[in-house]
């Protein structure tokens, strides 16, 4: 456990080192939500029904930005070899890296989400629900994102490859997350959609460590 904390703290420090990556992701998120209404034309009322959906799409895209940092840098500079010879199995290393990614990048993005959604015309009363669903969803994004980052290891143009691998895996949380907001807007109980979102996160939390560790081992061989 002590070793995992050492790794977790290092991952948090790395996420924030070199110019505050998480803040950049939040800035990207807000830029997207400003750009979409401008591209869609001048009628804000027309956007209101899909405000939740757009916010979730922007959240998913912003979550991809810093994934390349997760494993690729450690492979390039040799740190991944040293981490593999540590006291903890690679599966737990992958899980720890994904959790640190969520805390460093996912949580700030989730806290930006209400601002984005309300800017797009979602009722202010739903801010809490937006933040809650985004917190759960961004945990799922961090898990599947870590898997994508591990699978793309060692390839040139890894960043693009991660996006192509990961975006299809992001479809379920975007559907469930936006679904929860849509139900709430229409006066329905958002709990079923949130439950599906939670189920996705649990599934990703189980699959990512094993598949991710296998991908890392393959890249090291």
């Amino acid at each position: 456990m002590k070793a995992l904390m050492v790794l977790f703290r290092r991952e948090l420090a790395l996420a924030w080192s070199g110019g505050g990556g998480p803040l950049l992701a939040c800035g990207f998120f807000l830029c997207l939500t400003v750009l979409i209404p401008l591209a869609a034309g001048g009628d804000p009322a027309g956007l209101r029904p899909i405000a939740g959906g757009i916010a979730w799409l922007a959240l998913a895209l912003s979550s991809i930005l810093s994934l390349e940092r997760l494993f690729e840098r450690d492979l390039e500079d040799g740190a991944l070899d040293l981490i593999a010879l540590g006291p903890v199995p690679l599966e737990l290393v992958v899980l720890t890296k994904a959790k640190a990614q969520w805390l460093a990048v996912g949580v700030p993005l989730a806290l930006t989400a209400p601002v984005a959604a309300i800017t797009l015309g979602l009722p202010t009363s739903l801010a809490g629900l937006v933040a809650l669903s985004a917190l759960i969803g961004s945990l799922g994004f961090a898990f599947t994102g870590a898997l994508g980052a591990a699978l793309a290891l060692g390839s040139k143009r890894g960043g693009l490859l991660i996006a192509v691998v990961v975006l299809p895996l992001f479809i379920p949380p975007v559907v469930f997350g936006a679904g929860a907001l849509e139900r709430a807007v229409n006066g329905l109980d958002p709990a079923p959609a949130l439950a599906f979102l939670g189920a996705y996160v649990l599934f990703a939390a189980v699959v990512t460590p094993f598949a991710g560790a296998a991908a890392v081992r393959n890249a090291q061989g």
Partner: protein
Amino acid sequence: MISVTSLTVSRGERVLFRDLSFQIASGEAVALTGANGAGKTTLLRTLAGFIRPDAGTVAFADIEPAQARASHIHWLGHLDGLKTGRRAREELDFHARWAGAEADGIAAAIDVLALEPLLDLEVRKLSAGQRRRLAFARLVAAPRPLWLLDEPFAPLDARWRAALGLLMQTHLDKGGAILAAVHDPLPVAARELDIGAGR
């Protein structure tokens, strides 16, 4: 310490070595030699568990290979594994603790490798030789019996080659073992293991 039996490893179509067997005893240093491309790095990576051999076994005295990799092997490759944007102190602290070091071990390593003046600098500001010393510090800070070293002295000047030689001798005297891929002779008494010509 480690015993290798009829190891065969190939990369792609090419077989690098076939039926290679050797043992390294506790307290023994082995200089791994061979031409460029002969497979020195590949052999070291195979022993460290990064590469799966086509045939043969790598066995460690008394413990399972997975356990050995988790707590018995120090790896020092071409790459130092240091993040250029972080301070030397943070990087040493992480790698040493990850390898199992405690605070007093880290302090001793800083002392013996004269790292104190470098610790507050970013790694990017260190020279290649200074980085190698910083990377070497975790081997001193965290006691692990088997050192796998790949060209450990390449960036170092004569003074630090000699100093690291002394540290290696101390490690051997305590019952450790060293397998080092080198082109120049090791600064400690070592048996030579030649894996032959490259291509």
